[in-house]
């Protein structure tokens, strides 16, 4: 009888875990789609993420951030499977932590806020997908999923300063891509040479 009760409790716990985990399916799938840029690969990545989550269920502490835990699994799988290993090269972070003032003091290089409203959603997704993976994943975690810097840093296994510098560079590049698109599509007029 005791064993039956224990078994029932285990099944209950597993079902609760599974129910909570599957609640993040849509959000994980969207993240996988942005990372892989391919629906078939996104499905594989999500499925493998859940299989691994189930296998390592015991390492998940009930009451902690399951979404962050699942994203960490998925992100590591992505690098292992699709990119041949987790990134250690931080060369993208390049020139020191913060050169904000230098990079922002040329506001003419950016689209104005109201121009953004006229850019098609597809184009925004394309601009995000064009970012280098190390930058793209930070944008996904912080801007799309609303993770704090601290949670994003834990998912990515990097210091908070690295999250901030990657995020900053990613946003600069997004602004540049969207500004180019706005010029090409005539939403804003390109500045004339020498003007």
């Amino acid at each position, binding site marked *: 009888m005791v064993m039956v009760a224990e078994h029932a409790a285990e099944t209950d716990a597993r*079902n609760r875990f*599974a129910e909570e*985990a*599957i609640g993040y*399916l*849509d*959000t*994980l*799938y*969207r993240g996988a*789609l*942005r990372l892989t840029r391919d*629906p078939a690969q996104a*499905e594989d990545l*999500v*499925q493998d993420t*859940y*299989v691994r989550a*189930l296998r390592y269920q015991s390492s998940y502490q009930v009451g902690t951030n399951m979404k962050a835990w699942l994203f960490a699994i998925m992100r590591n799988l992505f690098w292992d499977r699709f990119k041949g290993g987790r990134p250690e090269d931080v060369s993208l972070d390049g020139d020191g932590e*913060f050169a*904000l*003032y230098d990079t*922002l*003091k040329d*506001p003419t290089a*950016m*689209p*104005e*806020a109201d121009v*953004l*409203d006229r*850019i098609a*959603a*597809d184009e*925004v*997704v394309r601009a*995000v997908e064009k970012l280098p993976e190390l930058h793209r994943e930070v*944008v*996904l975690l*912080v*801007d*799309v999923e*609303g993770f*704090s*810097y601290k949670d994003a840093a834990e998912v990515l296994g990097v210091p908070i300063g690295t999250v*901030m510098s990657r*995020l*900053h560079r990613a*946003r600069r590049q*997004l*602004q540049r891509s*969207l500004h180019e698109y706005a010029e090409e599509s005539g939403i804003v007029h390109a500045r004339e040479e020498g003007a």
Partner: protein
Amino acid sequence: MNCRDCLENLDRYVDRELTDDELSEVKRHLADCPPCDDLYLLQVNLKRLVKVCCDQGEAPQHLRSKLRQILF
């Protein structure tokens, strides 16, 4: 707070990562500095746009069914 300090805090301001004191300093600067405020509006709109555009779509039904079989 000068423009340089403000811009260095802008990402954290947009991402709500500042302390209350830092936040009110940035807020005060933005109220008095239209160029910095323009950059702030641009950043906050870009963040919102990325969220709205990338947060659409659902997982395919067959994937959901397959996962339910694996998980339960």
